[in-house]
C-alpha cells in the first residue's frame, strides 16, 4: 500500500478500516464541536454578534474587518469527500458536478502509515483510522450552521462566484485536488506498479510546533518520527528544522517541521515562521497551568502572522503525568472550540499516545485543502534559515508605510 498508486491506494484502503470504530488512540483527538455562537479565532473576542449581523454578506459570511481569519465555507469538504469516493470507485471522466447529497457518500478512511523506517514496533501497534470528517455542519465556519447547508455547492466551484472567498485557491482547491487525483502528477504508468522506484514527494508542507518552554514540543516531534523517547530532553538549540516524510493515503508528503524550542520569547519567533506554515501545532503542558495561560499569547501571534488557511492543532502534552494534571481536558477542548478550525488533542510523547495520530490528522487536514499544483511548486530551497526579524510587540499592528495618519 505504501508505494501503490494514489488511485490504487484510495481503492484499497477503505476496506481495511472501520470508520466508526474509533480506537482508544483516536479518542483523544476530539473534533472541535460547533457551538451556537461564533467562536472567533481569538478566544474571548466576540467577533460576530450573531449569524445575521452582516446581512449583506450572506449567511454566515459577515465579519468585521481587521485581522479576522474566517475559514472557508464548509461545503467544500463534503465535495472533496465525494471526490475521494470517486477515486475509490475508479476513474471517472472528470469531476461530476457536485449536487448529490453530501451525506450519502461513505467516507473513505485511510490507514495512516506508521512513520519512520524500520520500526518493528510499528507493525504490532494497532493502526488508528483517521477520524472521519463530520458530515453536517462545518467545523470551520461557525457562522450560520444553516448556511453551510444552504450554500449551493456549485457556487464553490467557481471562486468568487458570490461568496467572498478569502482564498480563491480554496474554492479551486477542491477542484484541483479532485481532478488532480484523476491525473496524477507523477507518471501514471510508474505509479501503477506495486513496487515503484522512489518518486519525489507529492506534497511539501511546512509545519511548526510552538508553545511555551518545556511543554515537550521536541519530544513530540521526535516521538513522531521514531519510537524512542528521550527522557532527558535533548537541547534543541542546535536543530533549526527537519525534513520528514510521511505517507498518507498513498501520497508522499514531505514535511518541513520547525520546532521553535529555544525561541519562546514570543517576539523573537519570526513572522516568517508563521507565514509559511501550513500546519501549526500549539502545545501546552497539562501539568503546568502557566503553559495553558500562555496560549492566548501564542494565538495572538498566530492571528497576526499565520496564514489564514493554516491548520491549527492544540495539543495537551504529558498525558502520562495524569496525577499532576492541572488543566482538565474540558478546559483544553473549550479553548480549542473558541477558535475556528482548531482541533484539540491530548497526547503523551512519553507513552506514544496519540502522537502519530495528531501529526497525521494535521497533515490530512492540510491535504484536504490544498491544491496539488500549488503544493508541488511552493516549497523550494528558498527557506533555509529564518533570521530573526526586528521585534514587533504583538499589540502593535504591523507597520504600514503608506498610511497617512489623518
Amino acid at each position, binding site marked *: 500500500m505504501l508505494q501503490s498508486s494514489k488511485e490504487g491506494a484510495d481503492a484499497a484502503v477503505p476496506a481495511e478500516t472501520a470508520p466508526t470504530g474509533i480506537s482508544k488512540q483516536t479518542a483523544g483527538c476530539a473534533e472541535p464541536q460547533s457551538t451556537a455562537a461564533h467562536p472567533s479565532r481569538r478566544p474571548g473576542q466576540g467577533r460576530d454578534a450573531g449569524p445575521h449581523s452582516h446581512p449583506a454578506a450572506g449567511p454566515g459570511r459577515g465579519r468585521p474587518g481587521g485581522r479576522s481569519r474566517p475559514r472557508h465555507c464548509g461545503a467544500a469538504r463534503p465535495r472533496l469527500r465525494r471526490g475521494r469516493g470517486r477515486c475509490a470507485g475508479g476513474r471517472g471522466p472528470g469531476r461530476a458536478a457536485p449536487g448529490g447529497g453530501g451525506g450519502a457518500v461513505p467516507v473513505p478512511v485511510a490507514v495512516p502509515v506508521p512513520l519512520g523506517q524500520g520500526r518493528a514496533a510499528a507493525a504490532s501497534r494497532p493502526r488508528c483510522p483517521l477520524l472521519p470528517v463530520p458530515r453536517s455542519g462545518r467545523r470551520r465556519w461557525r457562522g450560520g450552521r444553516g448556511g453551510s447547508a444552504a450554500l449551493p455547492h456549485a457556487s464553490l466551484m467557481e471562486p468568487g462566484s458570490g461568496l467572498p472567498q478569502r482564498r480563491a485557491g480554496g474554492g479551486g482547491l477542491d477542484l484541483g485536488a479532485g481532478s488532480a487525483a484523476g491525473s496524477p502528477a507523477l507518471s501514471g504508468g510508474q505509479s501503477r506498479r506495486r513496487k515503484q522506484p522512489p518518486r519525489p514527494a507529492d506534497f511539501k508542507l511546512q509545519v511548526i510546533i510552538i508553545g511555551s518552554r518545556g511543554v515537550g514540543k521536541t519530544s513530540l516531534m521526535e516521538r513522531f518520527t521514531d519510537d*524512542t523517547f528521550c527522557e532527558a530532553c535533548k537541547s534543541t538549540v*542546535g*536543530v533549526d528544522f*527537519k525534513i520528514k516524510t510521511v505517507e498518507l493515503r498513498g501520497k508522499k508528503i*514531505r514535511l518541513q517541521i520547525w520546532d521553535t524550542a529555544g525561541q519562546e520569547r514570543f517576539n523573537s519567533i519570526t513572522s516568517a515562521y508563521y507565514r509559511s506554515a501550513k500546519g501549526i501545532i500549539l502545545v501546552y503542558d497539562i501539568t503546568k497551568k502557566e503553559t495553558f495561560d500562555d496560549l492566548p499569547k501564542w494565538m495572538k501571534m498566530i492571528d497576526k502572522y499565520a496564514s489564514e488557511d493554516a491548520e491549527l492543532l492544540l495539543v495537551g502534552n504529558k498525558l502520562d503525568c495524569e496525577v499532576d494534571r492541572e488543566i482538565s481536558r474540558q478546559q483544553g477542548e473549550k479553548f480549542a472550540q473558541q477558535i475556528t478550525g482548531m482541533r484539540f488533542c491530548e497526547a503523551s510523547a512519553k507513552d506514544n499516545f496519540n502522537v502519530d495520530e495528531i501529526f497525521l490528522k494535521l497533515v490530512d487536514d492540510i491535504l484536504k485543502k490544498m491544491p496539488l499544483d500549488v503544493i508541488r511548486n511552493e516549497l523550494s530551497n528558498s527557506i*533555509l534559515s529564518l533570521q530573526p526579524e526586528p521585534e514587533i510587540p504583538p499589540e502593535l499592528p504591523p507597520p504600514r508605510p503608506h498610511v497617512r495618519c489623518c
Partner: protein
Amino acid sequence: MAAPCAEMEPAAPPPSPPAPPAAAPGSAGLVCAQGRNLRAVLCQRCGSRVLLPGAATFARRELLLPAMRKKAAAAAAGGGGDVLREHWLVRDMFSFENVGFTRDVGNVKFLVCADCEAGPIGWHCLDDKDSFYVALERVAHE
C-alpha cells in the same frame, strides 16, 4: 558549534560534474553508473532513512565536519573535526526523506539525523542553496 568548518579546497564554484566523478574503490558498490546512490542512505545510529536510492549523486569535495556527537549542537570538545572527501550531493532540500538541519554556523548549516540528531552527517553552505552534501563516512547504506 565551536569549530568553524571551512572548505579545504580553494574557493571554487561548486562542482557541477557533467560526468560523474570516478568513485574510490571503497565506494564502488554504492555508486551506479550515472553517479547516483545505488542504495538508500541511512543514519548510522538509528537507521532512519535519509535518502532514497537515486536521490543523490556522488561528489568529491573536501569538507571539514565536526566529529560526530550525540547532539549536533554540542561543541566539538577537543576541537578538530574530520576532513571528508566523499559525499552524496543533493540538489533540493526536499529530496531528502528525513534529515535535520542545524542552526547557522557562520554561513554553513550541518545536516543531522532527523530522528536521533546524530551527526553532523552533512554540510550545506548557505551561499549555495542548491547543494547539500552528505558524507559517505557518516552514514550507513542499506
